[in-house]
């Protein structure tokens, strides 16, 4: 359904020195710098998939989505969506896609929601009966009835986001692009949005490409995960396989009576001997050790620590996407890839 082949997007930025002097200087001499927001990425998406597309701010997520939707023209490479090249056939492409950018609405600020929907009906040329059926479905699914007569500017963020999603799906597109759809929302609204996305995917086989920083979105929705870092896709696969790729890490949390510096040192040395990348940190009386379980066994750590002091409590946790994301956002997951 979607093919992305060796796509690169360059942005030219002009560097200016800081301060007023720099600004004046910038008027005459500008240092040109080319940034590859997206660097030679390739992937394919099949109908009905829900892609969780994650990466730190500025990693290239939005740029990828904007190229797929036709807003941006790739600097090189090829994109086809349902057989069309999006930036060359914007209008045709737009008929088959729905887009929600969480940070800015596509609704008309001053119009009541209901009127917005009737405008969209005309813009997308939706036949009367199909429109009615679809609207009923979406109004129910997203619980919109209560505020459908209000001008968009009076809606709360949660209401507006539901309205945006409904507006994006009114013309029954096959593909839905969601750029941070749950940003800033409370838990209940998040739940509603997720439920709606799932329902659209199950009932209508809508293909969803979702970017988010909320790992629970990914956990609940995604059938496949793509991770982009500095413009390069560093992971593309299932939720389950992600641990294989990023090291089979676990975290052991120990609550210890009289946690001393020397003990900390000893544990650290012991862990590093077997797993060079293990991380030992402490917070008050809690010791946190992140390690690769292929190299370091839980029993070894526990045995060692328990021989040295009294352990009051302990917790063992598998690394989840959240942890991977954290390491990713902190930078440098690249080097860790095994």
């Amino acid at each position, binding site marked *: 359904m979607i093919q992305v082949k060796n796509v690169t997007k360059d942005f030219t930025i002009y560097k200016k020195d800081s301060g007023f002097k720099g600004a004046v200087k910038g008027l005459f001499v500008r240092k040109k710098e080319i940034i590859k927001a997206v660097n030679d990425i390739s992937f394919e998406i099949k109908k009905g998939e829900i892609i969780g597309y994650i990466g730190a701010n500025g990693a290239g997520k939005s740029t990828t989505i*904007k190229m797929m*939707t036709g807003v941006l023209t790739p600097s090189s490479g090829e994109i086809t969506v349902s057989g069309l090249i999006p930036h060359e056939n914007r209008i045709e492409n737009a008929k088959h896609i729905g887009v929600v950018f969480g940070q800015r609405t596509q609704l008309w600020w001053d119009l009541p929601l209901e009127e917005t929907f009737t*405008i969209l009906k*005309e813009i997308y040329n939706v036949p009367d009966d199909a429109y009615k059926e679809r609207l009923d479905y979406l109004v129910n699914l997203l619980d919109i009835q209560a505020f459908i007569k209000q001008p968009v500017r009076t809606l709360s963020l949660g209401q507006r986001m539901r309205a945006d999603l409904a507006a994006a799906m009114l013309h029954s597109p096959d593909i839905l692009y969601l750029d941070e759809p749950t940003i800033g929302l409370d838990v209940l609204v998040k739940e509603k949005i997720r439920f709606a996305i799932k329902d659209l995917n199950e009932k209508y086989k809508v293909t969803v490409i979702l970017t988010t920083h909320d790992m629970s979105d990914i956990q609940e929705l995604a059938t496949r995960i793509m991770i982009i870092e500095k413009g390069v896709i560093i992971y593309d696969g299932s939720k389950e396989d992600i641990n294989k790729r990023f090291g089979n890490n676990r975290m052991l949390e120990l609550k210890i009576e009289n946690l001393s510096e020397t003990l900390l040192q000893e544990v650290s040395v012991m862990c590093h001997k077997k797993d060079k990348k293990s991380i030992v940190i402490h917070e008050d009386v809690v010791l946190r050790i992140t390690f690769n379980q292929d190299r370091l066994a839980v029993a070894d750590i526990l045995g060692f620590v328990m021989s040295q002091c009294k352990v009051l409590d302990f917790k063992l946790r598998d690394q989840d996407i959240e942890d991977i994301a954290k390491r990713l956002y902190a930078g440098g997951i690249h080097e860790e890839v095994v």
Partner: protein
Amino acid sequence: MRYLRIYKIFLKQYLKTLMEYRSDFLIGMLSFFIVQSSNLIFLTLIFKRIPNLNGWTFEEVLFIYGFSQIPRGLDHLFTDNLWLLANEYVRSGSFDKYLLRPINPLFHLIAERFQPDAFGEMIVGLSIFGYAYHLLNLSFTGIQWLLLIIAVLSGSLIYTSIKLAAGSIALWTKRSQHVLFIIYQLSDFASYPLTIFSTFVRMILLIVVPFAFVAFVPASVFLDKPYIPLGILTGAIVAFVMWFISYNFIWKRGLQVYESTGN
């Protein structure tokens, strides 16, 4: 046909919101009347001292002035959103949405806004035009009225094309409000006889930013003092060429290089 229907819906919705911001609308109208009347007072004062301006009488200058406001108002009425393109749409990223809908993005952009303030310009323009028409004892034939309509439409298209070109620069630079403002200011020259300006200014208004064809060239034809031969036809050709260049080489090129904004 479908575009016409969409336009009607936009217009209807726009008028509805207008009712919500009624005072804003009234102030807008009022400010135009004030600007226009100060211009008129200025003209009257000048002609009290100098009854003849480079071969143009007060009545003729009034005729040109009134004429110039009609295409200006017509363009202003329909394409005011080009100012927002220049000023904020690209910078804020809200321009994205025009590229995500299955209709021509320029049509979408323009249809979204309707500027009734422009009625101020058109009413003033028509009144002055009518007054001068009366003072000059003109009586147009049917064909002349038809030519007049063509001239007004060409003039509007010239305005729109120039605004589109200047506004589209924002697709490269994120913001082109100042460029648009300066160029639009040049149109003030178009309200007066071109012959009073230096050759340099004349060349600019004829060739670079052809505001001369908006009012002066056609008006000179109707006043029987044609500045160039076949003024109306030339004006129409200039309008189409300007539109063609602005739409295909500036706006459409701009869409290709449009960089959007980060979130």
